[in-house]
């Protein structure tokens, strides 16, 4: 209830040590959106079914709607707000923007973070490995294809390769 006493914890959010007081029943999703103002993290069901609220907890993708805020004490959380570095987009953000991998953009933060975690573990994933890694995230707009292509292109660039989008993915088959 609203008059319930709050608990205070310390955690690292996007690289910054943060102390925050909140009602103890709150999920990490609610903590981020309501108490820390980080509304880049979205929600589609709050039941752990759609993957839209994915954030990284100590580098691992988690569904923030299923994690209690309290459980994040002294842990490290990364959200989409931290992906751009000093005003410069992350390579995944660049390719998602260029290829149209974000249509309505609602599921995009979750896909970006899940993909980032994949590329940290596996810098050169196959298409099937990308599909497996993203299988817990639903997107209703794109049909996923532009998302795979964006992950592949960003992965190549993050490996230091010079890579451009294919003509077919931007202009279709000849």
């Amino acid at each position, binding site marked *: *209830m609203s008059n319930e006493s709050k608990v205070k914890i310390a955690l690292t959010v996007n690289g910054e040590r943060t102390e925050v007081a909140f009602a103890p029943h709150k999920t990490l999703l609610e903590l981020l*959106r309501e108490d820390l103002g980080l509304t880049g993290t979205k929600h589609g069901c709050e039941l752990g079914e759609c993957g839209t609220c994915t954030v990284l907890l100590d580098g691992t993708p988690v569904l923030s709607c299923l994690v209690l805020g309290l459980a994040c004490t002294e842990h490290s959380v990364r959200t*989409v707000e931290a992906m*751009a570095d000093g005003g410069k987009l992350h390579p995944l953000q660049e390719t998602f923007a260029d290829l*149209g991998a*974000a249509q309505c953009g609602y599921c995009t933060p979750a896909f970006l973070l899940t993909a980032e975690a994949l590329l940290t573990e596996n810098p050169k994933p196959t298409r099937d490995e990308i599909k497996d890694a993203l299988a817990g995230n639903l997107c209703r707009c794109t*049909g*996923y294809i532009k998302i795979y292509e964006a992950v592949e292109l960003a992965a190549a660039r993050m490996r230091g390769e010079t890579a451009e989008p294919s003509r077919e993915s931007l*202009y279709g*088959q000849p």
Partner: protein
Amino acid sequence: MASRKSGRRVIGKALRKVDAVAKVTGATKFADDLAFPRMLYCKLLRSTQPHARIVSIDASAAAKLAGVQAVLTGRDLPIPFGILPVSQDEHTMCVDKVRFIGDPVAAVAATSEEAATAALDLIRVYYEPLKSFASAEEAVAHPEPRIHDYGDTGNLHKLIDLEFGDAAAGIAEGDIVREDLFFFEGNTHLPMEQHAAVATWSPDGKLTLWSSTQTPHYVHRALAKVLELPAARIRVIATPNGGGFGGKSDPFSHEIAVAKLAMITGRPVKITLTREEVFYCHRGRHPTLMWIRTGVKKDGSITGMHFRSLLDGGAYGSYGVASTYYTGALQTVTYQVPSYKFQGARAFTNKAPCGPKRGHGTPQPRFALEVHIDKIAEELKLDPAEMRLKTLVPPNSLTANYLRVGSMGLGQCIEKVVEGSEWKKRFRKLPRGQGVGLACSSYISGAGLPIYWNNMPHSGVQLKCDRGGGVTVFCGSTDIGQGSDSILAYIVAEVLGVDPFHVAVVTADTDLTPVDLGSYSSRVTLMSGNAAVQAAERARQILALHAAKKLEVPGDRLTFADGRVFDSKDPKRGMSFAEAVQWAEAAEGTIGTVGSYTPPRSAGKYRGAGVGPSPAYSYSACVAEVDVDPETGIVRVPTIWIAHDVGRSINPATVIGQVEGSIYMGLGEALMEEMTYRGDLKVVHKIPSLLEYKSPTTLEMCDVITYLIEDPDPNGPFGAKEVGQGPLLPVMPAVANAVYDAVGVRVDEVPITPEKVLKALRKKEKGEVPRFGPDRFPDIPWPEPTRVPTPWEGGDGKAVERVHA
């Protein structure tokens, strides 16, 4: 930069969307991301009964709960609303009776979501249950008790009977006459964003509503009506939609409830629907039973067609009258149909209301028609691709039901997918368990008529040129992820020769932007695009007048490109775009223009002619390949080839995005997506959740090979036609036809689940008709037909006057 052939610098380029960076950084503010000081949280109490009279509601305990600021019930908002003027059958909260499980009954505003939720538990509603109806067939069989006290008869909301030429005589001219029955199960949009709305009320009598709506103009009208406020004191802002697909196109109870609660409490009020509630809002695909009879010559040409549909509308009208007409409208725009009869009926049932989902009323009949054609081709021993190619509707022609077809690229579409998929090598030649299937489709690029009768434009644009060189475009259109904001920027940038990222876009705000009717019927690129072209051309004219004087060059020799205005014969002679604005502003004052768009008048003049006409029709052809496991009935789709005639791609990358997204959603409808209801009465939603409502993940999604066909249409901006909905339509029939190619059984029902495939396979083993699907169409009390002579009978689009005995 400039394409040498066209001279265009922006149109046709795969550019980022103007909001792409906001989307990938999480900066886009969706409705639920908004928060205000002292904001209250709203929750709706929803009916637990499928059909019942409300005897009484006791909300006294809820009102006394700590934190609760206001409670509303139906009697507080007695004025009905609904998207169509003919179906004003919804209330913000039910007044006398509830019509489905999930119907809103009461609303609470409290200082926390928890308090609002707790308050709902304290509201006592006493119901007197009524007999409920779970299917259209039940509603046909039981005229009483009526779910609504309006509608054509009993529990039939709408009955349509239209005849163009003598269809029975036409069908009889066929060398063969084929009759088939099909069923298309209902399914839902499932946008990732749950609907949300926030309202504020200012003591000076001004209401502001932010909402994830596709149609802010219609929400504006509904608020004014139900709240009895002057529209001039209501501001509706559509926030970027986290997916719409048609599911956010109606004015909704929750939008009106938060507005009223803000007026009562004087505080901001927000609601975010739970995922369960999104399933109750629904407005998804109508479950539709269809019967089709066609006469065909040996060469595959159609001599006449008769089509019947029975739609399960759920509990309310919504767009249903239009949906019903749409199940009979577009059969005629792909293959020539010389005479045509359509009978359509929509029933009320006690389930979540159906409405417009991507393709609106067209995927169901298109599924039926394309599978029916596949069966006809087999019966005539014709290749289904060849048969279609021979009977195409010619460009610039009028159909039997008076739809004006302009550009028509279906032939090229078929040729592309046939070649790309190696159709001729594979059709009927693959080993058992593998198959290919082909289907085609067409869709409108915007409805020719508005939702409510008026003579005004369907889309308006205002344009302001800043002396710093920036351009701002204002338009009521709503970006639901399809990229409509970007389309405005690209078009203005092309006409004025500026960088599209120097164009600021202000959209979907009834205080700031001229009316655009909304993001539905695939209308936005064509209509707001044409309005933007007009506004930008007018601005260019003003700028050119003064730049020409200054440069001492004839105005018609000026080119606007690359941020400059210059003499096309001597490009060095010119000025920056900003300087051009400054010269014009010095001479004329502030530089602002307007543009608007009204579709051409429709050729049909009969009652019902309002549904189907469009400024332009898009065309698609699709080949699906399938692997069917005869042991389990599981259908896998490895690849789909799709060619889409988009007229002209304003941005090919976003066009491909729409095509791939359409294929994805069509694949879900083909194989798994369905609104299922359980319980003895079959009116309880089967666990309304993203887990139980199966939709394709990355593991089910197929590869998509996309061909963009550009057959520019004179009615489209730069020739552009629609792409957001059309490419979905051929997927379901292409998959069904491929399943037949793979294992020789017909599943005449969508979705094509493993159980249905197995049942059909078992029938085949027993030597029975190898088919799963409906086997009867109920008797419907059809009205006297409206008879319209076809254009080739000398008709003028009007119905023949009925002779009264």
